[in-house]
Each structure stands twice: as C-alpha cells, then as structure tokens.
C-alpha cells in the first residue's frame, strides 16, 4: 500500500517520461484556464472588495451571447469572419452594459455593507444571469465559433523522450492569448491613468475618494474588465468543449486557485492556477486509480487547503495583520 502511494507513481513517471510530459501539459492548459477565471475574481476583489461569485456565470453568459449574436448575423447573410467579429464587439458591449447595471443596481445601494452581504448579492446576480441566459439562449450546449475567430484546431504531435506527445493547437493558442492578456493587464495597471486609479481604490476606498477618484466609475471599469476576461475565458473554454451551463461548476474550481494565490494578487492567480491545474492532473493520473478515480472533483480543494494551513493568506496575498 505504502509502495503504491509513495514509490510506484514516481517509478511510472521516470519510466514513461512522454506520458509525464503529456500530463504536465494538460495540467498546464487547464491551469491557464483556471487562472483566467481566477483573474476575473481578483480584478473585482481588488477594486471593490466584492467576492464576485458571478464570475463563473459571466464566463458562460458572455460565451452564449457571442454564439447567439453570431447565429443572428450569419443568418442575416454576413460571411463567417465578419459575423464573428461583429458579434465579438457587440458581446463586449453587452458586458459593458452588464457592468453598468451591476454597479447601478447592486453595488451602489449596497456600498459599505459587510463583505458577506455583497457576496450574497453576487449570488443574486448569478441567479438572474442563469435565468436570463437560459430563457434567451436555451439550455442546450452550443458549439463555440472557434474557426471563425481564426483560432486553430487540430493537434501537433511532437516526438520526444521516446514517445509521441500531442499538443492541441487550441491549447497552445489559449496559453499564448492568456499570457498576452496577463501582460496587457499588468501594463494597464502599471502604466495608465485608470490603472493607477484602480490601484489607488484597491489600497483604500476612502483615500481614493478624497483625491477625487470616482468609485462608481472605477467599479464600472473593473466589472467591464472582468467581463472581458470572462469573454476570453469563455471563448477559450468553449473552443475546447461546448458552451453550456455546465461550465458554471468548472468555475467553482477557480475558488481554490484564488485562495491558493491570495485573493488580492494577480500573479497569485496565475501561479495558483498553474499549481492547481498541474497538481490536479498529476493527482488524477498517478494517484487517482488508487482511490477509485474521480478525485479531480475535490483534489484541487485539498491542495489549496494544505497550502492555506501553511500560509493562511495564500501564497501572494496581503499579510493579514490583526489589531484590537
């Protein structure tokens, strides 16, 4: 038994390095996608202190909106690529309207309430979005318009370490786009006027207000940015499987990523995503059979819990200082 747990998996790893590379790659890719969802959470948490449960459903909602618009336009006679890009812009517009609505209807009346109340309010947003989304788009899974958006499909097989390792092209594209987006967000935060204002709000609401930064405006911007991140995540995730409300459960996976990296840290979300993604795949592949399989559903939480016991504020989170 002990042999099976502590030695055998590592022997397998060494004996079949190609399988190990394949598993690591899959873990990396799902890690990037977890990180993207977590990124949306972090953006909103940093700027408004709201633990936005609706991020997962925003991913689904934006992807469904995109596909819905595309279907309308291609039915109206536009060619594939034009329709796809017009739909993309319109979807971004929808996410902006959503950000405005959330700020106006939910956040502004609830300003200065305890965290848990705001958390609950985002649950309300989630329910509204689920109900609205299903009513408008139906509950059936939909095909993401990957090729119309110039996303590659198919796979590349690379011969290495005595075996074939296959990389899906869409996964490579996802990793590249995610990296570009993260760098872009970092530049936006560090170099632009609005980015500086966002960081000021994150540091202290009161101080930011006192130097003339409009909180309401910042919240709209942040929710819009999170909406765009959700849209990109939705496209990537939808291209790998279908677009359906099942994605909502996957979004729950972003929670361990989030606490592992620290609720307030953008790099934390990325590193946490990679750790969880890789750890989960390795665990499922090498240790899963011992426990009867399906451990993917809770393994991520177990990893996060172990890290948290060591660092209660997550890997990169702000140190929790408690005073009386």
């Amino acid at each position, binding site marked *: 038994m002990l042999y099976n747990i502590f030695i055998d998996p590592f022997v397998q790893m060494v004996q079949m390095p190609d399988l190990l590379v394949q598993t690591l790659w899959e873990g990396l890719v799902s890690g990037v996608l977890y990180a993207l969802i977590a990124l949306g959470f972090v953006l909103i948490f940093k700027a408004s202190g709201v633990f936005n449960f609706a991020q997962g459903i925003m991913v689904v909602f934006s992807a469904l909106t995109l596909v819905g618009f595309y279907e309308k336009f291609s039915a109206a006679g536009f060619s594939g690529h034009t329709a796809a890009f017009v739909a993309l812009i319109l979807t971004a517009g929808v996410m902006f309207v959503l950000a405005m609505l959330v700020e106006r209807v939910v956040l502004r009346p609830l300003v200065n309430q305890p965290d848990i109340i705001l958390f609950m*309010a985002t649950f309300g947003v989630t329910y509204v979005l689920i*109900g609205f989304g299903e009513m408008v788009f139906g509950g059936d899974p939909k095909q993401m318009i990957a090729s119309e958006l110039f996303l590659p499909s198919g796979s590349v097989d690379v011969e290495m370490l005595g075996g074939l390792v296959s990389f899906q092209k869409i996964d490579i594209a996802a990793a590249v786009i995610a990296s570009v987006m993260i760098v872009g967000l970092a530049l936006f935060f560090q170099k632009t006027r609005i980015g500086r204002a966002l960081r000021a709000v994150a540091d202290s609401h009161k101080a930011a207000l006192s130097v003339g930064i409009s909180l309401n405006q910042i919240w709209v911007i942040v929710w819009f940015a999170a909406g765009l991140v959700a849209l990109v995540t939705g496209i990537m995730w939808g291209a790998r499987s279908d677009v359906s409300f099942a994605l909502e459960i996957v979004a729950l996976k972003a929670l361990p990523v*989030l606490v592992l990296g620290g609720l307030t840290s953008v790099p934390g979300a990325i590193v946490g995503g990679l750790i969880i993604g890789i750890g989960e795949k390795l665990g499922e592949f090498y240790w899963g059979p011992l426990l009867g399989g399906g451990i993917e559903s809770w393994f991520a939480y*177990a990893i996060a819990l172990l890290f948290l016991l060591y660092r*209660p504020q*997550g890997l990169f989170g702000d140190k929790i200082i408690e005073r009386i």
Partner: protein
Amino acid sequence: MFYRETGQFKQSYAADQAVFPILQDRFGLAFILLIAFVAVPLFGNEFLLASVMVPFLILSLGAIGLNILVGYTGLLSLGSAAFMGVGAYSAYKLSTIFPGVNILVWILCSGFFAAGIGVLFGLPSLRIKGFYLAVATLAAQFFLQWCFVRISWLYNDNPSGAIEVPARKLFGLAITGPSATPVTRYLVVLVIVVVMTLLASNIVHGRIGRTWMAVRDMDIAAQLMGIRLLPAKLLAFAVSSFYCGVSGALMVFLWLGAAEPSAFDIKLSFLLLFMVIIGGLGSMIGSFFGAALIHILPIVIRMLPEALGLPIAAATVEHLTYLIVGALIIFFLIVEPHGLARLWQIAKQKLRVWPFPY
C-alpha cells in the same frame, strides 16, 4: 400599545433570564404552536403538508444549524449540504444494521456522526478565516460527496447508488417508508424541529452562545478575554453539524424517501446560506423566515401562471423562477441587509409605540 411590557415585573432570576420574557411573546408562541400542531394537520391538504410544510421545517432546521456557524460564530461555511449528507447516510447505515431500534433514535444519533465529521473539517478554522475558510469548507463538500458516490459500503452496495428508506413504525404507526401518511410525517418532523429549536435557542442565549458571539465580533479580543478559541470554534462546528446532520437524516427519511448523492450537492449548501442571510444572520426566527422565503417562494412562482391562466411553458417558468428569485435576493439585501429578522424587530417596535411615531 399592542406590544407593551409595561407592568410585567420580574420577581425571580429565572423569570428574568427566560428566553421569552414578555407575556405577548409567550402568547404568540403558544398561538403559533397551536396552529402548527392542530390547525395545519386538521385543515391542510396532502400537498401543503408533504411538499410545503415538511420541507420547510426540515430546511429550517438545517438553516438553524448553519446559522449557528455563520451567524453566531462568524465562520463562513459552504459545506453544510455535505454534513446533511453525513447525517442521512449514517442514519441509513445505522437503521439497516440495527433494524430493531427505534428509527427516531437513529435519526438523532446520526447528528453525532455529522458532528464528528464537522469537527474534523472545522480544525483548519483556527488558522484560516473569512472567504479563505469558505473555500476550505468546499473541500469538505466535494470530498464527502465523492465519498457518497465511491464508497459503496455507505449505500449497502445498492446497484442504483441511492439510499432507500426502510419502512419503520412508531407506536404501530408507520412514520417512514411509502405507507407513512403526510400527517404523521409532518407531526414527527414538527416535534423534532420544535424541540431542537428550543434547545438551540437556549444554547445561543447562554454562556456558550455568548462565547460564540464574542468570537464572531472579534476573535483576538475574545481570546484576550480568556475565551479559548479552538474549543469555542470546534464546538460551533460540532453543534452546527449536529443540526445539519439531523436535518439531512430527516430530509431523506421523512421527506424524500430515497436520496442519491446529488441530493447533497453544493446547490443545497448555497440554498441554506441564502436562507441564513436573507432570514437574518444570528437569529433563530430568521432561519425560519429565510427557509420559508427560499423554499415557498419558488413554489408560489411556479403555481402563479397556472392560477392566473397565463399560457407559459414549464421551462420558461423555471427560468423565470431563477430570474425572480435572484432579483428578490438582491432586492431584500438592499432593503434590509440584516435580513427579514430585522424587519420583524422593526415591526415589533412599531407595534410597541403605536400610535406614536417613537
């Protein structure tokens, strides 16, 4: 004017410390209990008893359990459905291993198993706080649910993977299984819920409850005042999980009749959290208000189109229900962030000073 305590003098410490010190409260409570025990079983039809009242009471019990943890001790938990599952599965195992023992004994005993598991998953709460703890309790939710699926011993290797409730009798009356009438089931649930609510009310009004509330308001300050945090938090986890466990066992034995692991999934956890927050954090009566709102509201919304004669498809009604419930959650939070219990308090204050404004 209607709700005045003037002239009600306390002449002993016991009277002063009573849970319901005001005469009107005691009358009101007696009236509610009279309705619950006599009027509802006499005049309620089968639908009202089996699909509205029984689930409402059971969910209220679960909400009280979660309220002890979230509302009184300030530990955010998203794993309450899993603890309900522990209660349900242990009651099922116990009742199939020892079929001779009274089923009610096992339903109550199952709470102790849930409490044990709850304490185990409550251990990290000393170090981890706030939303970080919520995610840690999600580990319990998903791990336990995985156990319910994978460990076939828990459901006696039943090929369907579900637990089915054996028929059991109490004083010659069937109380579980298909032959039990809604009235019997309702009365059994009602007795258990009333007794356990009174118990919980006494706990939170006593020394233990005050300890919990001190921990909630600021745990470091509580520690400096000599409250030992670990026992206090673990006790909260234990009592909370006990209530959740009993409510889970009741849910399977007296409401659903059979349950799959998916009955205890994360949605139920969220539902209980809704009830606690909409009802009012740190309020017993709030748990009942919350359960009533969250359970009965969707039923009413679903029945409305038919009652009004509107031709809406069933699927659309389902989506509309989601939409309306979500909107109402936001609405109630904006109107009264402290929950329905606070509205109740305001109403009582108005009754007290009426006809004057203050």
